[in-house]
């Protein structure tokens, strides 16, 4: 099938190509990004709320935008197959949610060390009991120590831009580890928002397997990073050495992704009203709620600023420290009970005592802007309207 695509580099696609506004769901936004990414292969295993994304990716496969697509047996199989396909030199995409992510995690955490470039959509969902399909994002905490690059999208527009950028970042020769794009299930995936998109006739330049730090696997070339030199067959000391080399390389690669996050997405953070007394720090959907609270605070003339964190890994320590250097109070709203973002923020600044641990909502509940406002009023020593329970 001929689709008359014009291939362009990511700089042109994201920063120069003319765009038109569409009113679409987050799931559509992710699939539209995949459509423009010259993806060779997508592998799906459905789980709510991700199903919508991989269904739509299946549609664009049927339209000829993707060369190969199939439904795997379950997530461990999906994630293992993604590794196999990526090692064979093709551009791959998959997505999952909450329990599916955890089921695939054994394979996922091995991706970076094996230098597997791919893009993983994470449409958040409750993983802890009681069972629920709602968008708690605690699963992202489990991904934070895997070595994978993690972007967290606030809305449908971010979902489109981040997913497209992810395909370029993952294949950079000095990165070459997987990139995940997370956003909240339902709140973003199933809700419509305005998304500016370039023409679907424009597509990202196809992958160049010769521009890679590891050779592509085929029948004669075994995978660069496994069985031939399996550490398990060596002495313990050889094993420790290989492990340290691989993993240090992974985290260096992860840090090197930062310059591309600047190049394609304008940096790992967005800061509004820097230097304010109260700073709100949030990522993903919580950033949308915090942005609203920031607006209300501006309307009321309060000294409140806002930091949106786009990149969870690599973590922007310097940028966060700089954005919070004049803050008297830092409020971190989150969609999970452990406060993984809050822990990162506290670890980034010398005066972590100024960080308010919350507000947090659990089980995928809405994060009411009113809860953030109440924390702001408290921080500024103001009376606030008593909200009825």
């Amino acid at each position, binding site marked *: 099938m001929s689709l008359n695509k014009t291939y362009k580099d990511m700089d042109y696609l994201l920063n120069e190509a003319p765009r038109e506004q569409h009113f679409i769901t987050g799931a559509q936004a992710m699939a539209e990004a995949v459509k423009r990414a010259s993806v060779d292969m997508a592998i799906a295993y459905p789980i709510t709320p991700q199903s919508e994304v991989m269904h739509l990716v299946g549609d664009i496969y049927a339209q000829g935008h993707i060369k190969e697509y199939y439904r795997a047996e379950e997530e461990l199989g999906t994630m293992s197959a993604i590794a196999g396909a990526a090692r064979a030199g093709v551009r791959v995409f998959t997505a999952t949610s909450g329990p599916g992510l955890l089921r695939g995690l054994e394979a996922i955490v091995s991706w970076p060390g094996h230098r597997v470039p791919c893009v993983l959509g994470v449409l958040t969902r409750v993983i802890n009991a009681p069972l629920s399909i*709602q968008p708690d994002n605690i699963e992202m905490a489990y991904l934070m120590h895997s070595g994978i690059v993690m972007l967290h999208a606030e809305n449908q527009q971010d979902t489109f831009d981040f997913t497209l950028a992810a395909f370029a970042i993952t294949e950079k020769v000095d990165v070459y580890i997987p990139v995940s794009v997370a956003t909240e299930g339902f709140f973003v995936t199933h809700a419509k928002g305005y998304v500016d998109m370039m023409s679907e006739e424009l597509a990202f330049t196809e992958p160049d397997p010769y521009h890679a730090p590891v050779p592509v696997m085929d029948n004669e070339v075994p995978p660069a990073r496994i069985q031939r030199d399996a550490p398990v067959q060596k002495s313990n000391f050889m094993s420790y050495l290989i492990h340290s080399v691989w993993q240090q390389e992974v985290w260096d690669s992860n840090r090197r992704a930062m310059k591309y996050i600047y190049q394609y997405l304008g940096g790992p953070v967005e800061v509004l009203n820097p230097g304010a007394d109260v700073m709100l720090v949030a990522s993903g959907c919580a950033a*949308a*709620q915090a942005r609203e609270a920031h607006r209300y605070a501006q309307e009321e003339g309060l000294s409140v600023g806002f930091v949106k964190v786009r990149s969870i890994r690599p973590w922007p320590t310097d940028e966060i420290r700089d954005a919070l250097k004049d803050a008297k109070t830092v409020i971190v709203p989150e969609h999970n009970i452990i406060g993984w973002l809050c822990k990162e923020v506290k670890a980034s600044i010398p005066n972590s005592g100024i960080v308010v641990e919350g507000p947090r909502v659990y089980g995928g509940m*809405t994060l009411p802007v009113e809860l953030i406002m109440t924390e702001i009023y408290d921080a500024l020593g103001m009376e606030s309207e008593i909200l*009825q329970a």
Partner: protein
Amino acid sequence: MASIAKRKRYNMRISGLGGQGVVTTAHILGSCMDNAGKYASLVPFFGSEKRMAPVEAYVRASSEPIYEVGEVVYPDIIMIYHSQVVTHGKSYTMPFYTGLKKDSLVIINTSVNVLEEEDIQVLTKLNAKVVQFDATELALKIAGTELATNMAMMGMVLGLTQLVTEDNIEKAVRERFLGTSFVTSGGTASLDSAIEKKFKKKEELLAKNMEVINKTFELADSIDLTSDDLVIDLAV
């Protein structure tokens, strides 16, 4: 002229029973705002919707872009489509005024007063206004079907808030029932007779729905929201 204190933003919670058109209203409200060049976002309750079971939908309507998402937990407008939401607790949020903010508005479709003494105490403290009217009776009387109850409820909230014009509403209702493809005048000529017949039926439906909405605008106009009364009972 009735109008609750002008706000840039209204956060609405609509509670009703399955089949009453709660979610449909949310969609039409959203389209009305869009037609008026304003902003709206809507969220249905994701659960097990079925006839006569509780259904909730949430609408944010604003003159500015809206960032926040999710269910409206702290509404400043609550619409109750069925008295059983209050009297039988058929609602995801119990009691029905949970989270209601100060100086806010409650519109209840009922033929009798459904407020208990305790409800009145809470609502008085919140300086709320409660408008009770029999939207179902109004729908039956004007449109000849109780299916237009949601139109009466929507007309009342838009009449009281004056967020949009009647033209904006008509366009949104037309979109909902006839689809945008039917709006273009040239297209109708080429439709085959079966669709024409259907179209005629739908045109009548649209006209009746608009009659209901116009009537509720008149009713809304007759309300004095500046009065000290908590409850305003409207005869239909």
